């Protein structure tokens, strides 16, 4: 059986293989507020579009100021790496995602596409009605596209598969709640990312087999336990750098980390409403946390639950949702005496520059920790 790491590294090949095996269509999406269950029920492979680090000589002609993630995903389309994607869907998210969606469609008008409004103000009294209405319309459009009806049975199955997937991933996270954990942050991140490009039924089979193996591992020294928050990440390089310094990322508050798995669809007769409520009830992302500030307290709860010693905030340059949410997060961390280090990421993760800050954070938490030659997990 392939490992999650291999699937992540060969994600385009995985999707192409999935298409060949199933004859199904691949629907690319950008943001984790996209209700994947609906697309899955329609027999599609909902594929999270992930940024990479590939050469970019094309996007500058059409984009300016975009964060690297959105620019890179568009670039991958231009390079033909996403040539197997049949459709593209965008939800109400940040403007850079919107821009990537729109510009990609201008360049690739043959792609099927849909814009799904998921409320900006998720807590409004009528947000659920707006989302429900949007989901109904989305289903109608999907049915026109694939030429078949999305049945209640298919929706029920999709809800089951996705709930199970989230439950298994929560189990994976739970393994790092204890002292002397045997699971590394980099391993978890690679699984999380691979999972987002996979057929969840297949991912569930792999997770069910993997979890007992991980639980059976011999516990190791903990080192410094860190939490990662900030803009999305698309690889586990930062986690590996942290591990090389004698620390471990034990939890996160990332859109493609805990925010992806913490709540389930609670089954209801009105399936679409049930799915909509799950997405409205997700832990607020930086962008959607725009009235009452729920996110800082949520971060704190995760920090406590996973017994972290400090926080790394990695923000993508030009990531406006996180740029405009840092004030409240810093304030809370300071007030609660939580050591933290903020830094900006870009297309690459400059090793020495990043290491300088992470080392200083670890050293601040446990002086002497980084001075131990040859220390490794």
């Amino acid at each position, binding site marked *: 059986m392939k490992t999650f790491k291999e699937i992540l590294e060969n994600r385009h090949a995985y999707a192409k293989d999935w298409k060949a095996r199933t004859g199904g269509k691949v629907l690319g999406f950008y943001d984790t507020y996209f209700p994947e269950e609906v697309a899955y029920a329609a027999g599609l492979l909902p594929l999270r579009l992930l940024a990479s680090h590939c050469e970019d000589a094309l996007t*500058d*002609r*059409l*984009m*300016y*100021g975009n964060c690297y993630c959105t620019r890179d995903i568009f670039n991958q389309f231009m390079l033909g790496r996403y040539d197997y994607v049949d459709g593209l869907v965008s939800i*109400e998210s*940040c*403007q*850079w995602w*919107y*821009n990537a969606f*729109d*510009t990609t*469609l*201008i360049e690739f008008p043959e792609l099927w596409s*849909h*814009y799904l*409004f998921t*409320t*900006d*103000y998720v*807590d*409004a*009294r*009528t*947000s659920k*009605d*707006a989302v429900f*209405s*949007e989901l109904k*319309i989305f289903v109608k459009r999907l049915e026109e596209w694939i030429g078949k009806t999305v049945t209640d049975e298919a929706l029920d199955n999709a809800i089951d598969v996705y709930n199970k997937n989230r439950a298994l991933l929560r189990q994976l996270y739970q393994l790092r709640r204890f002292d002397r954990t045997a699971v590394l942050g980099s391993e978890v991140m690679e699984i999380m990312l691979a999972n987002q490009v996979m057929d969840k039924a297949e991912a569930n089979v792999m997770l069910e087999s993997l979890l007992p193996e991980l639980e059976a591992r011999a516990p190791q020294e903990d080192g410094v336990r860190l939490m990662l928050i900030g803009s999305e990440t698309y690889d586990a390089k930062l986690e590996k750098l942290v591990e090389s310094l004698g620390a471990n990322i034990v939890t996160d508050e990332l859109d493609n980390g805990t925010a992806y798995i913490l709540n389930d669809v609670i089954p209801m007769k009105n399936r679409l409403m049930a799915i909509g409520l799950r997405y409205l009830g997700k832990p607020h992302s930086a*962008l959607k946390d*725009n*009235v*009452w*500030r729920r996110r800082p307290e949520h971060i704190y709860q995760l920090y406590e639950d996973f017994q972290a010693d400090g926080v790394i905030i990695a*923000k993508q*340059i*030009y*990531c*406006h*949702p*996180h*740029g*405009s*949410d*840092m*004030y*409240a*997060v*810093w*304030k809370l961390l300071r007030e609660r005496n939580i050591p933290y280090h903020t830094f900006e990421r870009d297309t690459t993760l400059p090793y020495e520059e990043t290491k300088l800050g992470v080392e200083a954070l670890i050293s601040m938490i446990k002086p002497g920790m980084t001075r131990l030659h040859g220390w490794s997990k």
Partner: protein
Amino acid sequence: MSKQIWETRPLEIWGKAKELRANFQKAINEAAASPNSLLAHGNTGGVDWSVGFDGLNVVEDNPIGAIMASRSDSFSREARLASEIRGWGRELCGYVNNCWGCQFLGYDSPDGAPFPYRQLSVPLPDPCDQHAKRGQQCMDLSPIPRFGADWPMYLGPIDPERESALVEHKVQCILHVINEIERIFGKKYDDEKLFNVLDIVPRVQVLVTKIAQLMANVPAPLGLKELYSFYTLSVLTKIDPQEMLDFWKAFVDEVQWRVDNKIAAVATERYRWMEAHPSPWHFLRYFRYMEQYGAVCIGSQYSHMLVEPFKLNDDGTIGREEQVKVPEGQKIRTREDALRSIFREARGERFKDDEYFRKHVITDFAKAFHVDGAIMPLWRAGVGCTLTRKEQGLRLSEMGVRVLHYEGAQPGDRTDLDEHDFLDRLDIWMESQGLEKLA
């Protein structure tokens, strides 16, 4: 200036405009000082529904941020540092960083009004995601009632089902805010005032559209720099709607007269350029610099956007695009209907809508306004001001319009605008088109 081609003269309505603006500012200041009024932070979006609350004034950050940028480099620099050190990204929009930083320094405006003086916050999630979070800071710094709203939108062809559901969501959000303000502050909302404004505003908008259309004439009776002094007056209808309507009628009459008599904004007009989004508010003198080349700016998608999307008519003129609206002759009788008429459309109300469904809008604009060139700033820190600029630039280039890009932080942030380099670029650009400065 030599080489005069057209007759020119100052606008006569200038004095009246200044008076109206001063009155508006005075009303805001009085509201801040008066115990009987409430000053809210926020953005009511389009027609100001807050008109129904006597004494409620909603202050938006964009104009304040822009004013700060144009008035004092050092003050806005201090404000932005105050904002940055507390965690707000320094690559964020200058408007919001100016305003947030100003509050951290203990002020609520560059005029020195102390912070906090706002008593509630109505942050309307905006098409721009930085602005969607702009209400949070005054809420963080002072325990004031706070409300949320939404800005629903969708792309694609008009879909009545989506229209009705999303507009209804928006309407219900605002109804909830109005009900809550009534409950918390014990003030009764006066629906008649809202209905009255809704009667006036569409008529003002028609006049504003007319002004924009008149700018398509050669010579341009009005340049963008002049228009910048007037355009926000179209949305400041709250103080005295009738007075505002009268002002715009008089303004249209004067501009029409200038067109009829070939009175130009720039006496040497021989080159016309367009823009797309806001200009650097602290450095508007490049308009005067360009006059040395006999160049006039006939407006921008941004300045003319305030009067609705345009479409190119068969005769080459530009007109208003039809939108979903209250049927003719249907009298608005309820608050709900009033709000529905304000938020009438959910399709594509975002900065990129023109690219997605109306790619031709930018080229239509260029055709209708007879432009030779386009100056398209690339604002590194202003998403809404930057989206599509490169794509639009390409589209204009393809139709033969010469395009100049220059970089800066954001219209309300002077940090990264290299003024010398910008003027250099203008020289090179104009010279590359065979134009030299007029003696």
